[in-house]
């Protein structure tokens, strides 16, 4: 009986041991054969950041206007502060390293409501090394991020746009070409060791990150610098509400510079209001005023209704039509050339009547007013041009002088570029090409003809007439540039307000091209609400001269204007 009891106990112990080892065996087999790294918490997973593509100016990859940088986001976790550390000491180190106010950092460390309080971003490795010293700092974490950096700060802000907190383009090129610029994330999956380091030999997946494509603009940062400086000066000098400038290459339609004021820092775009983000050069519509007269003159010349030498009566400074007066500072009988040179309202209004509603509307639409030009920027406005059948009796006398029609700055400069280009209208564009990280050209913008609103000889005639505007007796004398003939037109337009026009607020404009004899580039300057002076010839023309002079020298445009004796000597 005793022996039997021993035998039973021995069997029981053996069974228990067997069960234990069997369970252990099963467990081992399960761990080895199934996805053991997940089961044991040894799974290693890392996301590789695909940097957003860069944006360059027309000079190639020497001058990035926007690029993404690997950086670190530092955050405070107040509950992780070690007992042996004093938060005042930590705050001092953190504040000194990150360039923050010590009191602000201390206030964040005192908070109890959150374990993730972002305080600053840094791209400096030395800062990271200092703040990673666990003997010195605790309660501070860092995570890898990428930040969008704009090396030239505010330069081209409205064209470049910005990238929002979600990493998506929020305006400008960043928005328009977001899908090209966005990089593709990569990943590494495998196992990690007891020190949480990846075991290379157990790496199961490695998908490298792919950077976004690079964009090459048609804009030049040197011209843009000159433009933005000149615009800022005029806005400050005349206490203006803002302004916009566009520089366009005539043969291709490529935009060389585009600036809008007030501007903003793309890196700190949230500091600026929504209105400031708007690219006024393409997104604001305004009544252009007298700069529209060149289009009117081109239309009547193209219809062979008049010649530049045709004489018309400008009256005595006042002309009544449809019961409404039209004032003019030009008096007497003058040629069409003189009417454009001196900017006669009455003669141009009469030219509008001569054309008739239908033809006038047709020419305006042929110059692309009232429609988008299709520039590769977001937010382009169409302008306002009512159908001729809806015009009242006054409209055909007001539209030819730039009233009762609203345009964008881009439409206006493109119309002048069309005249300068022998009547051939090109599509304006700001992106030259998009290149993938492997060097493949993904997109290449080629100059595109939009139309031919007037004959080449008409365009040439209007150009010659416009050269007179900047000569003695013309309204745009201040736009003259030594050595170059300048063709252009001044414009002063009252700002439209509900119920009529403001008597105090104006748009002062000048648009023209250089050199007048063989145009290479055109420039539009519009200043909103300048004070106390508001005339386009006084406010905008000098800005044009400054920009045109700098651009002509930078682009090495040969001077075409020689005095008579110099011409004689040059011919020798």
């Amino acid at each position, binding site marked *: 009986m005793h022996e039997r009891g021993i035998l039973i106990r021995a069997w029981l112990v053996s069974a228990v041991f067997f069960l234990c080892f069997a369970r252990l065996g099963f467990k081992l087999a399960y761990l080895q054969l199934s996805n053991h790294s997940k089961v044991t918490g040894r799974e290693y997973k890392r996301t590789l950041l695909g940097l957003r593509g860069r944006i360059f100016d027309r000079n190639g990859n020497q001058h*990035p206007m926007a690029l993404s940088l690997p950086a670190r986001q530092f955050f405070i976790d107040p509950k992780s502060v070690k007992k042996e550390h004093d938060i005042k000491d930590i705050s001092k180190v953190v504040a000194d390293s990150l360039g923050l106010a010590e009191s602000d950092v201390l206030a964040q460390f005192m908070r109890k409501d959150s374990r993730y309080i972002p305080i600053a971003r840094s791209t400096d*490795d030395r800062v990271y090394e200092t703040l990673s010293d666990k003997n010195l700092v605790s309660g501070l974490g860092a995570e890898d991020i990428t930040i969008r950096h704009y090396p030239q700060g505010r330069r081209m802000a409205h064209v470049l746009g910005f990238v929002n907190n979600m990493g998506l383009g929020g305006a400008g090129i960043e928005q328009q070409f977001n899908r090209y610029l966005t990089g593709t994330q990569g990943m590494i999956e495998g196992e990690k060791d007891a020190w949480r380091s990846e075991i290379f030999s157990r790496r199961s997946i490695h998908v490298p990150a792919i950077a976004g494509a690079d964009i090459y603009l048609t804009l030049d940062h040197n011209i843009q610098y000159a433009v933005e400086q000149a615009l800022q000066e005029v806005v400050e000098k005349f206490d203006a509400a803002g302004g916009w400038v566009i520089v366009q290459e005539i043969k291709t339609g490529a935009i060389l510079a585009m600036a809008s004021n007030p501007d903003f820092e793309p890196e700190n775009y949230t500091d600026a209001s929504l209105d400031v983000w708007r690219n006024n050069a393409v997104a604001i519509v305004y009544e252009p005023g007298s700069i529209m007269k060149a289009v009117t003159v081109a239309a009547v010349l193209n219809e062979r209704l008049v010649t530049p030498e045709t004489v018309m009566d400008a009256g005595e400074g006042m002309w009544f039509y449809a019961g409404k007066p039209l004032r003019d500072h030009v008096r007497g009988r003058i040629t069409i050339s003189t009417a454009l040179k001196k900017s006669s309202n009455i003669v141009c209004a009469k030219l509008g009547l001569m054309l008739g509603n239908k033809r006038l509307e047709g020419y305006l639409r042929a110059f692309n007013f009232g429609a988008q030009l299709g520039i590769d920027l977001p937010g382009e406005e169409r302008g306002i041009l009512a159908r001729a059948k809806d015009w009242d009796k006054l409209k055909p006398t007001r539209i030819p002088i730039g009233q009762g029609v609203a345009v964008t700055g881009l439409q206006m400069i493109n119309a002048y570029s069309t005249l300068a280009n022998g009547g051939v209208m090109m599509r304006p564009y700001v992106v030259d090409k998009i290149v993938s990280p492997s060097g493949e050209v993904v997109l290449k913008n080629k100059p595109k003809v939009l139309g031919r609103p007037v004959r080449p000889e008409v365009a040439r005639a209007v150009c010659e007439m416009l050269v007179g505007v900047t000569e003695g007796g013309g309204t745009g004398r201040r736009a003259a540039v*030594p050595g170059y003939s300048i063709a252009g037109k001044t414009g002063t337009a009252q700002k439209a307000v509900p119920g009529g026009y403001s008597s105090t607020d104006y748009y002062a404009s000048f648009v023209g091209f250089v050199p007048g004899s063989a145009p290479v580039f055109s420039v539009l300057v519009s200043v909103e609400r300048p004070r106390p002076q508001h005339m386009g010839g006084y406010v905008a023309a000098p800005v044009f001269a400054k920009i045109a002079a700098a651009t002509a020298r930078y682009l090495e445009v040969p001077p075409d*204007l020689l005095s008579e004796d*110099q011409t004689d000597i040059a011919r020798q």
Partner: protein
Amino acid sequence: MRKNRRRHVNAKVLSPAVVGMSVLIVTLTLIYCCLDSKCNQLGQEIRKHEQCFEALEDERVREEARWNDKRTPEKLTQAMLSHGLEMDYPAPDQMVRIGAAGEPLPGQISLAKFRKERASAERVAQKIRQ
């Protein structure tokens, strides 16, 4: 008192094939272990190099950005002004454009001015000679 006993050993001599197989298995196992260890070691080195490369690449991008920050027209102008250098593009009458043949291109103010000055200088020289 110790008894001298003859020790009886119950042993079998394994066949050479079995011994050879066992030795081969053990040798292969040892080689595998060595290679595995070496691979792991190399893997760790590769991983370290990868990390180093990533860090250097990041630093290169950041350094490039710092360099670009310093080369903006605004910063260059400021830097030159700090050394008392105020520079601008030359005026049209200060430039002489030379063609591929090495001859000045016609129709330039600078050229006209140069020839005018040279002509007047020659006239003066001629007068002096007379």
